[in-house]
């Protein structure tokens, strides 16, 4: 292994400090006794306790969770289907256009996505609420899912599906019994990604949320405009914890799968 020179250590520390110091300060101050955010007055979990009493925050948290679960599940189903079609259907007229269009929302500015969805919902007379946020989050997170899943499908051995058909499966059964279990880690990773994306989102949610369906990011954002409170710090710390766990799990699942695949390949190579 390369030994770390002083220069490397300094630049590494600076880089990580730049990235994580603000978050660290936020987490530390969430345990501050004092009501004043900037003055340290000793360790306490008081604000976490108060947070649990705060009806408005709890409501927002509940809405956020519902939205995240529903939208990520829906996005996973749709994204997986889209990936499957794009990888499998071979050539059909308009394939390039179609696959390009699926990935377009990845680069579309969120404000525009939000605005266009808002116009759509108004246009079709859909009242803004939990449903509209779920739909909006589904549209933008399904393309992330489909990127993750299609990268797995590309390396998927097609003859496995053919073997399933050969043994009497209908095409749908072949997908359910053979393809899906094998690509499951990628699908789960896609779901976790969609889940955290939905949890994070402020811009699109602000466009599509109604008065009764405020999500946490919206709540925090509006609360902060009135002044930072220690409660917000506590709430944000919890959110950070959830997102961190989500991201770590997703990458662990992917990594474990990659490792297992490598093992299998090695075992196959040895057996030759």
């Amino acid at each position: 292994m390369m030994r770390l020179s002083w220069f490397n250590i300094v630049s590494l520390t600076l880089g990580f400090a730049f990235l994580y110091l603000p978050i660290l300060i936020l987490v530390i101050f969430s345990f501050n006794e004092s009501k004043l955010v900037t003055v340290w007055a000793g360790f306490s979990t008081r604000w976490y306790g108060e947070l649990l009493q705060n009806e408005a925050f709890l409501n927002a948290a509940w809405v956020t969770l519902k939205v995240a679960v529903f939208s990520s599940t829906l996005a996973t189903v749709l994204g997986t289907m889209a990936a499957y079609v794009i990888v499998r259907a071979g050539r059909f007229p308009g394939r390039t256009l179609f696959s390009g269009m699926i990935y377009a929302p990845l680069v579309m500015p969120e404000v525009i996505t939000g605005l266009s969805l808002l116009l759509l919902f108004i246009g079709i007379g859909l009242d803004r609420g939990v449903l509209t946020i779920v739909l909006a989050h589904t549209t933008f997170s399904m393309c992330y899912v489909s990127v993750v899943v299609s990268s797995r499908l590309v390396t998927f051995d097609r003859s496995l599906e053919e073997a399933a058909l050969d043994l009497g499966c209908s095409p749908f059964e072949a997908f359910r019994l053979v393809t899906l279990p094998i690509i499951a880690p990628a699908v789960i990773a896609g779901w976790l990604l969609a889940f955290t994306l939905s949890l994070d989102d402020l811009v699109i949610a602000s466009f599509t949320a109604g008065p009764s369906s405020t999500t946490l990011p919206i709540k925090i954002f509006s609360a902060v405009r009135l002044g930072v409170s220690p409660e917000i710090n506590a709430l944000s710390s919890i959110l950070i914890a959830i997102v961190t766990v989500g991201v770590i799990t997703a990458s662990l699942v992917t990594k474990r799968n990659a490792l297992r695949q490598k093992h299998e390949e090695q075992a196959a190579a040895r057996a030759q």
Partner: protein
Amino acid sequence: MPEKIFAPWNDPDQKPLIRFQNVTKKFGDFIAIDDLSLEIYEREFFALLGPSGCGKTTMMRMLAGFETPTSGSIELAGKNIVPVPANKRAVNMMFQSYALFPHLTVWDNIAFGLKRSKMPKDQIAARVDEMLKLTRLGKFARRKPHQISGGQRQRVALARSLAKAPKLLLLDEPLGALDAKLRQDTQFELMDIQETTGTTFVIVTHDQEEAMTVASRVAVMDEGKLIQVATPDRIYESPESVYVADFIGDVNIIEGRASKQGEDLYRVDWAEGQAPLVATSDREFSEGQTCHLAIRPEKIAISAEKPAEADNAVQGSILDIAYLGNLSTYHVELPGGMIIKAQTANTRRLSRRSFTWEDTVWLSWTATGAVLLAE
């Protein structure tokens, strides 16, 4: 009345199980199968043989239902199966790459097809155990495919494709990964299985010896066409073209000009200053037609003196000797530079062998020992 031998292809009353009729398969502009017609009968063990890329797998995939012919029809038991999807065909295939399900155990892999049919649970278990015993995989039933060896995987694939007792079993290079001994055992096992189950087998192989061992008939293919379809002994003893003669086993090819000598007997002038050769042939050759004489090395005798009564005899010197254990192959160079291979059985110990390098020897064979071919 002679004993009835298995030869349904000679019986005009027999209906074929499979009938390819003018089948062409194109991938884009590339013609993989070229206007091919073929009939395969029930209980046959039919081998497809040919160089890599000649279309063997494509034939199998069309039978299994993964490729549709560009034109022509394929019948199974009298019904056109081209529009029938793969999962509705009474055909099972053992894939060249095995295609075992990595997330299922050996047991579940074998049970997979049975579970799709409406077979009761206890019957499935019994059938799987029977298959495990047949392929000697009992010890590995609970393992996943990546936890067993290549040869074992191959047997799992075989067991899985046999489990449903299909009408037709397609085997795409089933024994490629096995060592010579296990390969031979498995070949005999396959023949046993084929006989006891009465299943029709179509097997693809690169290995001509394997095709000769197991098959009732062999089809030699090249570039999407059938070159010859016949029983193994006919393919070997009376190939219809130089391509087939050359593809199956070792052969010496001598080019010359034919002229008729008598009923079925031809003289072949093959080199300046050399005595002409003679060979019998059912095929007609016109006077002076270019022809090829194909002689198997084991049909050529080798001796120190010129044999008195040989139909054909040529003299040369030994260039090389390949010792193969039970056989030795002598590479003999003729005066014109042509090299002829002659094979003899090693009935004596090596030290008492009568010929060695650079010896001048006579090669001889009978008029019926060689096959005269036009091309």
